[in-house]
Structures are given as structure tokens and as C-alpha cells.
């Protein structure tokens, strides 16, 4: 195994042609290369591996080895420590202890120490360069972990208290910047908070302590963040703005709470909250070993690379993803898992989250490291493993490791609007943990599932309910679909649309997609097997409407089908369809001939493509001209096509998603068509008929598919333009260089500038095409977003003249209604879920909504402009919070 890839790079550097064969040879056998590690490499790896057995025992040995290395290379040592600190956060206190040992004067060195600086200081000086590098890149996690290191070193008397307070002050200063982005603010605040929790005890004793000021700055900043917090709480509350939550905490809120508590007792609790191995060393005499002074810093501003691409309406089309407040969901009580509002609990969670983040590149190693985590904590923090010797410390916190780890992983999975990493990473990580230690992790997972299931009835956010179902299904598919379904049997009494019932249905649907109907069916107890509101009684196959010989259009369909099966040319099929149309029209008995023909044709095409995804693609590709002919240019025919798809695959919603996606991909329909269709046809299995319009997770998936397609295309078009421009600029630069010395440079500049700005397009036809595409695509993007807002308005605040009204849209948002939710029927729950999707839409697409807020706001809310109904008000308020108009 390699510990440092840069070492592989070395043979490649500076190689001419001569090198080529050798490189090739090397690539054949990596092991050869590994075994030729340089002494520096070996030392670096030894530093990184500190503590494989017992860090306390190893520390003096490692310090000795470092000092005895010949030649002594400070950069090697500092790089080793830097890698270790930023990639193994749980070991930071031990690296602080190591540095303290390197800082300590050795015997016989005393006389020199006043003149030359200690090895520890030299290493720190070099380490600082690395820190400065992270700071310049605003690599926040690395910066924060370095601050942990510095904070421990301050307690270890290696770094001066004054320079450490100044460092933390610099991060607090970020919070006073004008217009600081939330992401920057949160990251800077966390640096200050965590740095203070670790070093506060010595800071408090210092006369120049600025702890109180820093806390105040963070507090003021945090108080100014109001609206965004309401949108991302894991439990959805439509009626209250109260920010106190029972089952979740926001990380900065909690950090402040911890700090204030520590501050009022002079940070005495801090010392027992995390390991401080360096405290075992004797005090240093500051006159002999003066502490290291951290240089002053300024946190560099965020660099926003503007590509100057605007929409045709002149809005800035560049999307800047905003960070949101992070609420972590609690699954267990404070006896079982750390109370994040304590110093130990706060840091444990922070370290576990960092570990999850850092080792995203290798989930298997991540799982192993997480299960080894207690080794790096104060003894007694976690309950000993079953069968392990009795702990020496009686007064430990005795938290449960597996529950703590699962709670942290799920906490980061349930961050809104989106988790830090792809959902599937969290899922796969939990799978690995279960594989490593099934007997201990399994029960923690089981308990988590039960807690989350309970939370479903208490307002658990709709998006998180969807993620929960997804996790559940994928997890079960990795463990033989074993779940004790019968414990949820009593819930079959609940309303069909109760979030628990929706969850069960959805989880089973997702399981079936990953497996198959019969397999999943047989995992259920009988009452569930026979209940079609739990699981469908049919395999999710195609539904070819014209299959039945008694169907009036049976013959018509068969004639098209036989052409398609015989692989007739698309134009032959088209002309056959034209003739069928004429026949139908002349027979005079049929209304809506066009719609009928479209439906039959699409059913036939999907039928030949129904065997597999590839068959679908082949059918579409072979008959693209047919599809284009059917789709025509009007919106209505596109709606017909989408309706035909939905009816053909009404037993299989995964296929509806897939076919819609590919129809957009092949440009038969546009994202706006799909958005429009979704709102026109809301009403899956449970809400048929003329009931109030409402959205379930299935419709949300369709919307998201369409919006992501529209946004993704803009993204691709933007990259294309940027690449072409760069290519163009490069060629201009080359021309300029080749013309070179002869021409006066001033004259040249004058030539180039207007050329770049105005004539570049005409000079470069590719760029013209790309810019035109970009303009069309941003128009389409805006259209799709506006249509979505309109759609939500028609669901939640339809104007009085609209055909379908929803009286529940106003009632479910009151506190009284929420209190009696046990009496809610399907319509109430559906409406409540629709509110949830609307909120989720606003926060998920807020970067786009923000860019286009003027147009979208005007178009989308046109129908409820000036309306004072509670529903209309809540819609506009939510919109305002997401677009930053409401703070």
C-alpha cells in the first residue's frame, strides 16, 4: 500500500524520450517501486502511521528517530505532520505532543537553544507554509484541522497564547465582512469555535484574552442568519418560526452554546473532553524555550471566476452554490450517543464527520477507521467492546460507538437541501460498517430505522423521507431484504397517505426496482402481501393498451406494430400513420383522432422497446424521425406523448422516469414539457379523480429529472463556450507571440482587444453556435423553472376561478390542524407533502431562482399577485426566504 503518491510521480518528472521505456516497465510492477522507498519517504510514513499500536509509547521513540535522521530534513518532517494532521484529525493531539517533544530542548543542547531555534519551531515554520497554502485555496477543512493542531500546541506551550488569539480573531473578523457568504461565514465561525474549545483553557488565563469578543462576534453573525435556518430544518413545520428543535441541532448554534458554557466556567470542562497527551510533559521554562509566534494572517477573499456569460435578458447565468445551515438529526438520547452540546460531544461529532468526509475516497478504510475511533478518545468515552477488559475509569461517558457513528453518517445524509456527498456514499459506508462488525453495527442500524420511521409521523421532511426510503431499500438489498415488516403491521390502520404508509410503499417500490417483485413480495407478512395499498399485486410490466383483440383500435395498433417489428423505415411508418389518420377521420366516429393516433403509435413504439433499457434506446434511435413527426411543434402533442408513456408504464414508475429522461435526451420533448405534464397530470395511484392537485415523491422525481436536465444542459453549454473562448484566446496569444518583437506591443494590444470582444464570434463559427445554444438553453431553463412555480401555485394556491381547488392548502399549515393530524385523511397528507416539495424546490434550486428572481417571481406568481390568502402568503414567504429577499 502506498502512503504517498507523489513518490510515484518522481520518475516521470523531467523525463525525455529515454524515460519512456522505463515508465512502461515501472507500470508493470508497482511493488518494485514500493520497495525502493527513500529514507525520507520511510520517515514520512512512520510519522503518518504514528499510533498503530500505542501512540503514547511510540511518541518518544518517533521523536528520537526524527532527531537521529541523517541528513535531518525539516520539510520532510513537516510534510509528514501536515499530511497526518489534515488527513487523520483524530490523531491531532498526538502530533501536537510529538511537536512538543521536538520543541523540547534535548540534553546538551541547552547552551545553543537561546541562539538557534528548536527543531520543533523549525518544523512549525515550515508547517506554516503549508497552512498558508490551504488558506490561499480556502481549503476550509484543512485550515480548520490545522487550527486544531495549533490550538493543542498552544495548550502544550509550544505556540504563544497571544499569537493564537490573534489567529482566531482573524477568523472571527471574517464574520464582520460586508456581504460575507453563508458558506464562508460558517466555515470561519467553525474555525474560531473549535479553536477556542481546544485552547480556551489557556486563553482564559491570559491577560489579553479575546475569547468573549470572539464569542460575541460569532453570536451576532449567527443571529443574523434567520430565514435560511427555517428552510433546512429536518422536521418540517409550516406554522411556526420557532427555532428550537427537539430532535436536531444546528452546528453553529451548538458550537456557540458549548463555548458560552465553557467560558462561564473558565473552560475547566474542556480538559477532560479530549486527549491532551502533551500535558504529561513537564512545564517549559519560557525564558529557555520561547514559544513559537504564529505570523499574522488575513483570510483571503473568495475568488469568483466570472465568465461574463449572461442570459439574453441580461441576468447573470452563473450559478453559485450556496451553503446552508447544517442541522444534524438526533436519533438517540444523550446517554447512548454524545450530547453535541457538550465540548466532548461537539468535538467527537466534528471528528467523525471529518473522517467521513476525508475518507470518502475509500469507504472500506473509512469504516475500519470509524470503528477504531475510540482508541483516539479519552478512555471511557465509549463503552468497551463486549468481552474487552473492564475499563479503568468508572466515570466515563460510556457512549455507544456504533450508534454514534451511524447517527453521524445519517446526520450528514439528512442535511438539507442536499447531503455533503452523494446519498449512495453514506449508504455504502453503512453497508461496509455492517459487513465489518455485523453483530454490533446491525442493531444500531435497526434502531436507527425504527427511530426514523417514528419521526415520519412527526413532520420529518419530505425529501428526507425519500432519502430514508432510498437508504432502506439499498441497505436491505445488500442484506437479503431481511426486515421485520410485521412490526409495522398495526400502521396499516393509518390513512393511506400517512407518511409512514407512503414510506412503506415507496421503500418496497425501491426494493423491487433493485430486485424483483416476487422476491420482495415474499419478504412480507401475509396481510401486507395482500394489500395493494402496500405493494402492487402485479409485476411492474408494460401495459400495452391495444393488446386486447376486442379493443376498438386493436387492428390499427397491430398494423403499426407489424411495421415496427419488421423494421420498416421511419418515413414508411409515418405515412402509414397518416393514412390511418385519414381512415379514422373519414369513419367519423372518432373524436380526437390526432390524440388517439399519437397514443397508439407511442404504445407500439414502447412495446417494441419494452424488453430492456437497451431495447428502448434502439427503438427510439431507429424511429427518431417518427417520434419527431409525432411530437410536431405544438405543446399538446408532446403532452400526448408523455401521457402515452405514463399509461404504457403505469405499473412501473421507474420506466416512466427513464423514458421521460430519454425523450428529453433525444429532444423529442423539452424539460418544460415534462414539468407542464407533471402538474397537469398530478395524481398517481392514490389520488385519482378530481381530488385536489398534489405532488408525491414520484412527481417530484419527474420534476427534478426535468429541472436537472435543463440546468445540466446550461452547465454543459457554459463549459463549451468557456473552452472555445480559451482556445480562441490561446490562438490569439500564439499569433501575438509569433508576430512578436517586430510589432510594437502597444499597437498590438490595441488590435487584439476589440478583436476579442466583438469580432471573436464572427471569427469563430463554433463559438457563434455555442453562444446561440447557450442562449436557447438558458431560455429553456428559465421556462422550466417558471413553469414549476406556476404549477406549485396551481396546487397550493389556485386562483378562485381554477377548476381544481384545494381547501386543505390553507388548513394544513395551521398549528391547530397539525395538532390533530391523527385525524387527517389522504387529502390533508397529500397537501402537506406538496407543501414539503414546494419548500424543497425553493431551497434546492435557490441558486437558480436567485439569479432569475425578477422574471421568475413575476411570471410564476402572476396568478396570486396581491393575494392575501394564508397559502399565497406562505408561498411567497418561502420563495422570499430561498431567494434571500427575506432575511
Amino acid at each position, binding site marked *: 500500500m502506498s502512503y504517498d503518491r507523489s513518490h510515484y510521480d518522481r520518475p516521470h518528472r523531467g523525463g525525455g524520450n529515454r524515460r519512456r521505456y522505463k515508465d512502461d516497465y515501472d507500470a508493470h510492477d508497482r511493488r518494485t517501486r514500493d520497495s525502493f522507498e527513500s529514507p525520507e519517504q520511510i520517515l514520512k510514513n512512520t510519522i503518518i502511521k504514528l499510533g498503530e499500536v500505542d501512540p503514547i509509547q511510540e511518541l518518544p521513540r518517533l521523536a528520537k528517530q526524527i532527531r537521529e535522521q541523517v541528513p535531518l530534513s525539516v520539510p520532510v518532517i513537516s510534510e509528514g505532520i501536515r499530511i497526518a494532521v489534515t488527513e487523520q484529525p483524530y490523531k491531532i493531539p498526538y502530533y501536537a505532543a510529538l511537536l512538543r517533544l521536538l520543541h523540547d530542548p534535548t540534553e546538551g543542547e541547552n547552551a545553543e537553544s537561546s541562539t538557534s531555534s528548536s527543531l520543533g519551531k523549525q518544523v512549525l515554520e515550515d508547517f506554516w507554509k503549508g497552512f498558508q497554502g490551504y488558506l490561499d485555496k480556502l481549503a476550509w477543512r484543512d485550515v480548520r484541522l490545522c487550527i486544531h493542531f495549533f490550538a493543542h500546541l498552544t495548550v502544550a506551550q509550544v505556540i504563544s497564547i497571544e499569537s493564537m488569539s490573534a489567529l482566531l480573531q482573524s477568523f472571527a473578523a471574517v464574520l464582520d465582512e460586508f456581504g460575507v457568504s453563508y458558506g464562508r461565514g460558517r466555515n470561519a465561525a467553525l474555525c474560531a469555535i473549535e479553536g477556542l474549545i481546544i485552547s480556551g483553557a489557556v486563553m482564559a488565563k491570559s491577560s489579553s484574552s479575546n475569547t468573549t469578543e470572539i464569542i460575541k462576534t460569532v453570536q451576532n453573525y449567527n443571529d443574523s442568519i434567520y430565514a435560511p435556518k427555517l428552510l433546512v430544518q429536518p422536521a418540517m413545520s409550516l406554522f411556526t418560526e420557532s427555532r428550537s428543535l427537539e430532535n436536531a441541532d444546528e452546528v453553529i448554534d451548538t458550537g456557540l452554546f458549548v463555548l458560552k458554557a465553557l467560558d462561564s466556567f473558565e473552560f475547566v470542562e474542556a480538559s477532560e473532553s479530549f486527549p491532551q497527551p502533551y500535558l504529561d510533559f513537564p512545564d517549559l521554562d519560557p525564558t529557555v524555550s520561547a514559544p513559537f509566534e504564529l505570523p499574522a494572517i488575513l483570510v483571503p477573499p473568495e475568488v469568483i471566476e466570472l465568465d461574463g456569460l449572461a442570459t439574453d435578458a441580461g441576468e447573470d447565468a452563473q450559478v453559485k452554490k450556496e451553503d446552508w445551515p447544517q442541522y444534524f438529526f438526533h436519533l438517540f438520547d444523550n446517554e447512548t450517543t454524545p450530547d453535541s452540546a457538550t465540548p466532548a460531544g461537539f468535538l467527537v461529532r466534528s471528528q467523525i464527520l471529518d473522517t467521513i468526509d476525508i475518507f470518502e475516497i475509500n469507504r472500506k478504510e473509512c469504516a475500519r477507521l470509524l470503528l477504531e475511533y475510540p482508541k483516539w478518545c479519552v478512555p471511557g468515552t465509549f463503552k468497551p467492546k463486549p468481552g474487552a477488559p473492564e475499563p479503568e475509569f468508572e466515570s466515563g461517558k460510556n457512549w455507544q460507538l456504533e450508534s454514534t457513528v451511524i447517527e453521524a453518517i445519517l446526520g450528514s445524509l439528512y442535511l438539507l437541501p442536499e447531503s455533503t456527498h452523494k446519498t449512495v456514499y453514506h449508504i455504502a459506508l453503512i453497508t461496509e460498517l455492517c459487513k465489518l462488525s455485523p453483530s454490533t453495527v446491525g442493531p444500531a442500524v435497526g434502531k436507527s430505522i425504527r427511530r426514523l420511521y417514528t419521526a415520519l409521523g412527526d413532520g420529518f421532511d419530505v425529501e428526507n423521507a425519500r432519502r430514508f426510503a432510498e437508504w432502506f431499500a*439499498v441497505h436491505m438489498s445488500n442484506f437479503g431484504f431481511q426486515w421485520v415488516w410485521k412490526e409495522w403491521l398495526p400502521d396499516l390502520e393509518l390513512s393511506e397517505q400517512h407518511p409512514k404508509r407512503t414510506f412503506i410503499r415507496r421503500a418496497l417500490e425501491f426494493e423491487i426496482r433493485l430486485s424483483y417483485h416476487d422476491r420482495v413480495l415474499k419478504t412480507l407478512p401475509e396481510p401486507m402481501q395482500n394489500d395493494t395499498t402496500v405493494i402492487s399485486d402485479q409485476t411492474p410490466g408494460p401495459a400495452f393498451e391495444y393488446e386486447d383483440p376486442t379493443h376498438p383500435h386493436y387492428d390499427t395498433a397491430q398494423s403499426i406494430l407489424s411495421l415496427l417489428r419488421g423494421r420498416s423505415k421511419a418515413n414508411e411508418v409515418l405515412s402509414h400513420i397518416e393514412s390511418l389518420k385519414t381512415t379514422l377521420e373519414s369513419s367519423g366516429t372518432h373524436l380526437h383522432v390526432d390524440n388517439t393516433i399519437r397514443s397508439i403509435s407511442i404504445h407500439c413504439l414502447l412495446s417494441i422497446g419494452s424488453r430492456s433499457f437497451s431495447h428502448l434506446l434502439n427503438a427510439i434511435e431507429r424511429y427518431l424521425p417518427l417520434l419527431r413527426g409525432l411530437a410536431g*411543434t405544438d405543446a399538446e402533442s408532446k403532452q400526448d406523448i408523455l401521457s402515452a408513456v405514463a399509461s404504457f408504464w403505469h405499473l412501473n414508475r421507474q420506466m416512466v422516469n427513464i423514458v421521460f429522461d430519454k425523450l428529453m435526451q433525444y429532444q423529442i420533448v423539452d424539460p418544460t414539457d415534462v414539468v407542464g405534464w407533471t402538474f397537469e397530470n398530478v395524481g398517481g395511484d392514490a389520488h385519482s379523480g378530481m381530488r385536489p392537485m398534489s405532488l408525491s415523491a414520484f412527481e417530484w422525481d419527474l420534476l427534478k429529472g426535468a429541472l436537472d436536465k435543463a440546468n445540466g444542459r446550461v452547465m454543459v453549454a457554459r463549459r463549451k463556450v468557456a473552452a472555445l473562448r480559451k482556445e480562441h484566446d490561446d490562438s490569439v496569444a500564439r499569433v501575438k507571440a509569433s508576430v512578436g518583437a517586430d510589432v510594437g506591443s502597444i499597437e498590438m494590444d490595441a488590435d487584439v482587444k476589440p478583436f476579442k470582444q466583438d469580432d471573436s464570434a464572427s471569427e469563430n463559427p463554433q463559438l457563434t453556435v455555442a453562444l446561440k445554444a447557450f442562449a436557447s438553453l438558458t431560455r429553456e431553463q428559465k421556462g422550466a423553472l417558471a413553469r414549476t412555480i406556476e404549477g406549485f401555485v396551481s396546487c397550493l394556491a389556485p386562483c378562485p376561478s381554477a377548476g381544481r381547488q384545494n381547501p386543505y392548502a390553507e388548513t394544513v399549515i395551521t398549528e391547530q390542524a397539525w395538532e390533530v393530524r391523527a385525524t387527517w385523511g389522504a387529502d390533508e397528507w397529500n397537501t402537506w407533502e406538496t407543501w414539503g416539495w414546494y419548500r424543497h424546490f425553493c431551497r434546492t434550486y435557490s441558486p437558480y431562482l436567485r439569479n432569475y428572481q425578477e422574471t421568475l417571481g413575476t411570471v410564476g406568481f402572476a396568478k396570486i399577485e396581491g393575494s392575501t390568502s394564508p397559502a399565497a402568503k406562505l408561498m411567497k414567504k418561502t420563495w422570499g426566504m430561498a431567494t434571500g429577499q427575506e432575511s
Partner: protein
Amino acid sequence: MAHVVQPLDQPSNYKDSQSRVERAKQNDLLSKSTTLYIGNLSFYTTEEQIYELFTKCASPEDGGGIKRIIMGLDRNTRTPCGFCFVEYYTHAEALASMKYVSGTKLDERIIRCDLDLGYKEGRQFGRGKSGGQVRDEHRQDYDPGRGGWGAQAQRLEAERRREVEERYADAQEGPGAVAGGGGDWKESETVVPSRKRGRSPDDEGDNVRMGHHRSRDDMEVERM
């Protein structure tokens, strides 16, 4: 990054033994690859199951998604023989699958993913003597998911087998047998056939140019 552990998204020793591409070029292709080879599938696993799992690594908001899936078939029987290719639109999605999906279960088997040089005509078929994958020629164990079943066959499996045997009976060989999955977005007025639309004078230029583009794209589809 990644000094402490080996990242999972690195190319392994998997390779296309019949590829004639030189190694440096191969490495270059792999570093941009959007295609994965998926191994150790059950013969019964469908493309939709594969789609469902792999779509979890897709990033449509970034212009990505599953472009196509090419099921590995037994050369002789035209039935799935336990491998497939999943092609995304972006490299990052392929890497995400390496990190999060490879080594997890699909249809109750642990599947493996490897970055692939990209699908080439003919690679959808098994290369074993019997028509399936080479590994199944030498396999000693009893593997119900990969054709190693007989008298003990379960009823469910038998039913799935019947469906599976019929599904790809129509599989074709040669150019154009495998769908492309849909390319980048193109300005649409030039793609829609102008069957009924009156031609305006300024249409001409566009159509000529686009026509040219299209034929090039078609060729690309065929080459793949």
C-alpha cells in the same frame, strides 16, 4: 490527497485483453473514461436493476446521467452471461460508481466495477469457448446466479430464466446494433425534419451545416 489510504477510484489490473491500444494511450483514456465494466452479475439481472443502482451515482445537474447500458451476452445463445458496460455522460459519475457501488450487492451478488476504455463493436459478447465469459469456463463452484443450477433450481429462478432467455433473442451484431443513448443537446430547429414547414431563405445555411454535423455524429454512433 489520499496519503493515508488508497482511493477506490483508481484503475485496477482489469483490462481488455484484446485492446490494441498502447499502454500510455490506455491510461489517458482511462483518466477520462465514462464507461464501466461491471462484472459478477447474475445472469438474471436486468438492465433496469442495473440502471436503478447506477443512477445513484449520476449527476444530471452537471450534464450527466446514464447514457446507455450494454448487456454482455453469450455469443451463441444470446442470453446474458454475467457482465455489462454502463456508460455515463461524465467521467466523475464513473469514478463515483467505483467508489460507492463497486463491491456492493446488486441482485444479491457482490458486483465489481472497473473503468473501461470504452465500448467497441463486438465487446457485448462473451469470449469463452462456450460463448459465455471465460471465467465461467473454469469455475469450479456451484453458482445458481450464473447458470450453475440444475435439479435444485428454484421455481422463481426458473421463471426469471424463461424471461431472460427470450429477452435478447433479437440481439443483433454489427454496426448500429447497439444504441448510442443520445448525444449532446443541439439547436432543435435544424434537427426537426422540415417535412411540412415552408423553407425560408435563411434556413439554407444552417441546414447545410447541421446536416454535415449530423452525418458525422451518425458515423460516431456506428463506430462505437
